[in-house]
């Protein structure tokens, strides 16, 4: 799922300075699970912003709250129609996709991001999230024992560990496992070390021209290259 962190309160307060009526919109999917922007966080943030405003001696600001099931889905965005008519800005606690979906759906409304969208990952334990997938569009986990070298190696290398690995850790951070040592150990366990002997040519970055689009209407699912249907 998508992992994000809430922005610092003072940054949000600065973004909101020009507006007096603000709708805080949470998201019921990834942001709820990673604790950055679900219904509970919307409520906490509402109170925190109110207190911050009072301490700074500013004019009281009107805050409305609403948490959608998914911000990245046009079907749910329609539910905001009445609420947005009452405000002059939206503070979205959705991921970057959610913020942009609201902006696209309500062209006249300023939309501000309340979280920094970080990565695609999972929880190690509550409050500790680890990146697992770079969404590179060219999955090679079959060759690497189910451990992603693009994500888990800080240099995203394809052909084995660099000389910067020390006691199985990465040169960029002694707390971080060396992805290639993990891959080596796993392939050894699976009796598949021949996969590490193979040469893997440089990545094809044409598989990820930004922005990417996948269409299942023409060319079949997963087609991301070439001209798109109108």
């Amino acid at each position, binding site marked *: 799922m998508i992992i994000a962190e809430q922005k610092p309160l003072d940054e949000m307060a600065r973004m909101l300075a020009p507006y007096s009526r603000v709708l805080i919109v949470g998201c019921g999917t990834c942001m709820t699970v990673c604790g950055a922007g679900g219904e509970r966080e919307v409520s906490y943030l509402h109170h925190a912003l109110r207190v911050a405003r009072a301490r700074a001696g500013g004019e009281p600001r009107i805050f409305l709250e609403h948490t959608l099931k998914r911000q990245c889905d046009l079907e749910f965005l329609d539910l905001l129609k009445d609420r947005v008519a009452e405000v002059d800005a939206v503070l979205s606690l959705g991921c970057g996709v959610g913020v942009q979906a609201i902006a696209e759906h309500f062209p006249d409304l300023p939309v501000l991001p309340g979280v920094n969208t970080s990565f695609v990952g999972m929880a190690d334990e509550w409050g500790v999230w680890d990146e697992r997938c770079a969404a590179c569009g060219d999955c090679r986990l079959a060759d690497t024992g189910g451990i992603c070298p693009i994500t888990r190696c800080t240099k995203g290398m394809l*052909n084995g560990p660099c000389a910067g*690995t020390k006691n199985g850790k990465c040169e*960029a951070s002694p707390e971080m496992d060396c992805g290639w040592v993990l891959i*080596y150990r796993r392939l050894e366990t699976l009796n598949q070390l021949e996969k590490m002997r193979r040469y893997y040519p*440089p990545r094809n*970055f044409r598989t990820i021209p930004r922005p990417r689009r996948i269409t299942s209407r023409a060319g079949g699912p997963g087609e991301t290259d070439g001209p798109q249907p109108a």
Partner: protein
Amino acid sequence: MTLRQALSEGRFVVTAESCPPKGTAVAGALEEAERLRGLVQAFNVTDQQSSVMRLGSLALCHLLHERGLEPVYQVTCRDRNRIALQSDLLSAAALGVENVLCLTGDHVSMGDHPQAKPVFDLDSVSLLEAARQLSSGHDLAGKELDGTPSFFLGAVVSPGADPVEPQLLKMEKKARAGAEFFQTQAVFDAGAFGRFMEAARPLGKPVLAGIILLKSAGMARFMNRNIPGVHVPDRLIGIMEAAKDRQSASVEVAAGLIRELKPLCQGIHLMAMGWEHLVPRVLEASGLVNGEAG
């Protein structure tokens, strides 16, 4: 005689590390190299070593070459994509620089511009492949070149890495991708190095053992804690600690290591770490003069 010829003839080779300045003042690096003229085979010029922004490796290689000193152009994948890397390799060849040491490169977070975008479009193995492909008259996209370079390619290996097995697998890949010689991370333990060479021997590629001049016991302990693949044994730390004259002790330790390593490998690569003036003494004390066995 070039590095390629010396190694193919089975001569014991000495190379020295040369570090470009942070700025345009190249005189110091050129003076250091001049002092070693005739004593070492080639100068291995670092590419933004430890991710610290400096004058380019190719510029210093060119200046050395112009003075009749043989350079080894270090190229890392940290800062350039495949277009720029291939282009710089062609530029090197056009300037007469044909020895290339291909590395992945340290992560940008280790250096003085930690917020820079790390590139790593290629890695050390695919960089070797790219250089080899250029030497065969084509670029990585398969397009034909107008004028073909002829590189002598090297790569690095870390014999003291833990675990060492994946390093050996990668060394094998580098040899298959075109590496004609290997240079190692600093070696301080001849016994462990001998075991590594046993494992590396089937590749049949010459190996230059890395020698770092120890400056103090503190530096040795620092490297043990922080530098991957480097382990200075307590005995050597003890020698540095007890030394009244640290420079003489450093020469003695390095020369002792070189004498122990010489039967095990095909050459040494000296990293003087600012004590370049001691290199002639080290070579003399270890019985290596004029880059050959004395």
